[in-house]
Structure formats: C-alpha cells, structure tokens
C-alpha cells in the first residue's frame, strides 16, 4: 500500500491569446501553478485551500493524470500520473465537485455495477464495499433511481461511493461540497474522516471554504496565485481565522452597536457589521446582547474568508505562524 503524494517544483503554464485590436494578438503566459512542492504521507488527510483561480483544480488535474505538468515532477502512489495514467487510475479515486462520474440516465446501482467492471473489482470485495457504503451513506432508498432525478446531496454521496468502490489508496476531491446544504456537507465530510481512520486511505481535498477543512483535515496547504504559501497544521490557521462578523438588519437605523465583545463596527443605514473574536465571545451571547440593545429584523454570521486569512499571512508572514 503506497498512498504517497509527491509534488516537486510542480508547475503548469498556459498560453493565452488576447486580442488587441482587430488583427494583433498578444500571447500571455498564465502561471496557474508555479513551483509547488509538498509531500503527503500515506494515510494523511490534507486540505488544499485557496481562493478561486488559485490553481487548486489544476494541481489536482496534474496529480491525477489529466494534465501534463509544464515543469517539475509528480508522483502518486509511486507512479507518474502523466506517463502512467491508466495504471494510476486503478489506484486512485477522484470526486469532482462539478462533474459527474456517474452515468446520468442510469439508476445509481447500475452505475456502481458498471464501475465494478471498469475497475475490475473482484466480486466479493465489491459487494462488501458496496454494502458498507450503502449503509454508511444511506443510499438504500434510491439505488434504483436514475441519477438525474437525485438531489445534489444524494448525487454527491453516490459520487463518493463511486470513487471508493475499488479500494483506492489515494482519494482526490475537487471542491466536493459546492452547492451542498449544511447537513449533506457534514455527512460527506464525516464519511471521509471515517474512511481515512479505518482504511488508511490518503485523502486530499480542495476547497475554498475554510470551515470544511477545520472540520476534518489536520493538515492544510494554502495556495494563492499558483504558489504554496502555507503548509502546516490547521490549528495554526485558527489563529488567523478567529474573527467573525455578525451582520444585523435592524428595524430602524441606529448608531453603532458597540456592545460588549464587539471589536469593530461598520454602519450602513439599517445594516451593521459587527466584528468579534470567537475565542472571546460566542455568537449566541453576542446575538443576545445585540437583540436586547436594538430591534433586529434579520442576522447572519460570517466567517473569515480564506482571502482574508491569506492576506494576514502575507502581512504577518509565515514566521508568525510557527511562534
């Protein structure tokens, strides 16, 4: 069992043609991924996070054999994804958040059967796996339903199963939780955690939602504009991600609500943004204080977006993290 993921100076450059005027064309090089190096040991669970367009999907495509790298090397499960695509495909599972592996018109169960043949999974192993996943992800009720009639949450559970039926050593997930409701998200992520614990499957998941990773990945890689700017424990990031914002819509405009626990306030008519630190005051407490101070019509709690965390990292540098 060799579930290692290695990237060494991995790069991907795209040539893009831009039109300037009617006939002239500029050739620009987009460095989607620019010299990324990291090593994931077998059985690790790693989050790969970055803003949109940072190069997350491109990295995964290079690691799974879909794209040839422009520079550097990649090794997954000991194989070169670019040259040994088919051999590697047997040993990895991939879940795309926005593309379907399952056959759209066929019942879910039929898709699974087809995949058994595609991956040449021995019958007993396949049955055992299927039974396990069907139970864990509660797929039973809709095994006979065509995939196109399923809800997004159900499809995602199906996709997870599809990626794991052949006992891959490494699983890649590319934004798997996009569009999912809170409950479905939790279920999917918990399932992955259990899988990693019990079978030692290496998991690498990309996302732009920090909360996903805090939930399940002990280790996090942050990518921004093609470069790796952080590689370490999630706990370190929590330091940067403690701030939250309570957004309240009031019945009538009021002066800033500087209640206890609020660090900073922004006011715009009836709406106020109240910044607070969650390690110093809990959201329910703050809400209660605000509600007793003013008539609240609606409210939301916003997390620190990854963009903000990245900005902090740039400002305070990586040294600040190892303190």
């Amino acid at each position, binding site marked *: 069992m060799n579930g290692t993921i290695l990237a060494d100076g991995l790069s991907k450059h795209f040539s893009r043609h831009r039109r300037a005027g009617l006939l002239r064309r500029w050739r620009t090089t987009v460095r989607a991924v620019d010299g990324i190096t990291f090593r994931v040991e077998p059985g690790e669970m790693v989050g790969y996070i970055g803003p949109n367009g940072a190069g997350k999907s491109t990295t995964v495509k290079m690691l799974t054999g*879909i794209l040839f790298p422009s520079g550097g090397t990649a090794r997954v499960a000991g194989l070169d994804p670019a040259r040994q695509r088919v051999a590697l495909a047997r040993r990895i599972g991939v879940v795309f958040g926005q593309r*379907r592996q399952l056959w759209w018109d066929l019942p879910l169960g039929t898709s699974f059967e087809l995949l058994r043949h595609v991956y040449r999974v021995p019958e007993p192993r396949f049955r055992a796996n299927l039974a396990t996943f069907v139970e864990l992800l509660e797929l039973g009720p809709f095994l006979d339903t065509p995939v196109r009639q399923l809800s997004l949450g159900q499809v995602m559970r199906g996709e997870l199963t599809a990626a794991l039926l052949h006992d891959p050593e490494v699983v890649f997930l590319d934004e798997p939780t996009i569009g999912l409701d809170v409950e479905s998200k939790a279920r999917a992520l918990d399932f992955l955690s259990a899988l990693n614990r019990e079978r030692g499957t290496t998991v690498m998941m990309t996302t732009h939602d920090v909360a996903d990773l805090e939930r399940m990945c002990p280790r996090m890689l942050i990518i921004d504009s093609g470069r790796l700017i952080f590689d370490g424990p999630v706990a370190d990031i929590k330091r940067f991600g403690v701030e939250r914002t309570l957004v309240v819509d009031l019945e009538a405009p009021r002066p800033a609500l500087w209640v206890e626990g609020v660090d900073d306030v922004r006011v715009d008519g009836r709406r106020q943004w109240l910044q607070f630190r969650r390690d110093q005051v809990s959201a329910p407490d703050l809400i209660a204080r605000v509600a007793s101070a003013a008539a609240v019509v609606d409210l939301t709690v916003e997390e620190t977006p990854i963009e903000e965390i990245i900005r902090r990292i740039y400002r305070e540098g990586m040294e600040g993290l190892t303190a």
Partner: protein
Amino acid sequence: MTYRTSTVLLTIGAALATFMDFLMIAAIMGHLPTLDGWSLPEVGLLYGIAGVAFGITDMCVGNLDLLPRQIRDGTFDVVLVRPVGSLFQVLAMEFGVRRVGKVLQSGAVLAISLTRLHVAWTGPKVAMLAVAPVTASLIFGSVWVIAISQVFWTVDTGEVANSFTYGGSFLTSYPISIFSGWLRDLLAFVIPMAFVSYYPALFILGRPDPLGLPAFTPLLTPLVALAMLGVAGLIWRTGVRHYRGTGS
C-alpha cells in the same frame, strides 16, 4: 415506459429520414437509364453497401459527436481518470440502437438491388460482398474519429466533422466517377472513400475501373481499412495528448 415509446418513434423516424436519401437517387435516376454508366440497381448496390456500413458505424461510433460537448463541460476529465482507454470509453458510452434504421433500410435496398442485378457470382465475389460492409464500416469509423479529433485543437461544435462523416455517406452512395478532377482525387483517395463502396462494387460487378487503376485495386480494400484504423488511432492519441498538455 414512455421513454421506450419515444425511442421506438425516434428509431422509426430516423429510418424513414434515411430513406429520403434513396428517394433522392431514385428521383434523379428516373430521368436516366444510367448515371455515368451505372444503372439503378448498380447504384443501389453502391448505396446499399455504403448505407449498411454507415449505419453500423453510426451505431458503434456515433457517440463521438458528443465529444465537443464533453470537452466543453469538462466531462472528458472524468474519462481520463478511469483506468480504460479514452476512445473506448467515449464509444462505449451509449450504443445507438436508434440508428439501426439506416442499416435495415439500406440492407433492403441492397437486397433488392442484388436481385435485379445479373452477377456472375464466384467465391471471391461473395467474399467481397460479405467483407465490404465491414471494411467500409472501418473506413467510415476511422474518418469519423479523425474528423471529430479536431475538436481537441479547435473550439468547434463538431459540425465541420459532420460534413465529412455524413458527407462521406452521401458521396459513397454514388459512383465516384461523377466527381471530377482534384475534388475526386481528394475525396476518393486521400480520404479513401472510393474503397468504401465503389471498388468493392466494381469487383462484384466485374467491371473495369474507368479511372484506370489496376484490376487488383479492389482487393486492397481491407488493407486500406486497416491503414485508416491506424491513422485514426494515432490522431486520436495525439489529440488526447494535446488536451492533456493544454487543458483545453
């Protein structure tokens, strides 16, 4: 339930539509005893071989028309993540039963034409008749793969490819000799459409080639088909390589 009815209707509709091709030939031949020296049953022979072959090809390989959309949607990536050859996956995605209509309709025309023709049947001729739809199908299939592979490089919707594939079906229904000059040489030999139905038919009918090629030319048909397969595989692989290099 209704899905099945609709499939049946679509199949019938498709079959009837393909019949229009033959009506066109009949309408023209109605004014002619022969078309460039080919009588109606003889043209029917051409049409029949080409039609059966094209129908088979369409059933097996017609899914290639989905490739442009797969590339646009990113679904082709899913193909690349599986431990099976990419071309096979695209072809196997769906078996176009719908298109069987063309096979049946052309088969009927072929059968009827054969009854009207006075062929001095020999062993080799029968063999040629049996083999021709197969080799023709391979040639059509190869052309289809090559034509659709260009979407790996361009942002085409595949319509250009259609003019080669369906166009090929049209032109092999007629004797190649009606086309003239460089167009004929291009269509018949560079893209070897002449080996789809024309040369096999010449062999079966025992006619000399008005284009002046040696008498054994029809026997080259299987070689041409295999060569085309090789070229098609090569171009497809190059196309996938390009896709994996540039991410399209």
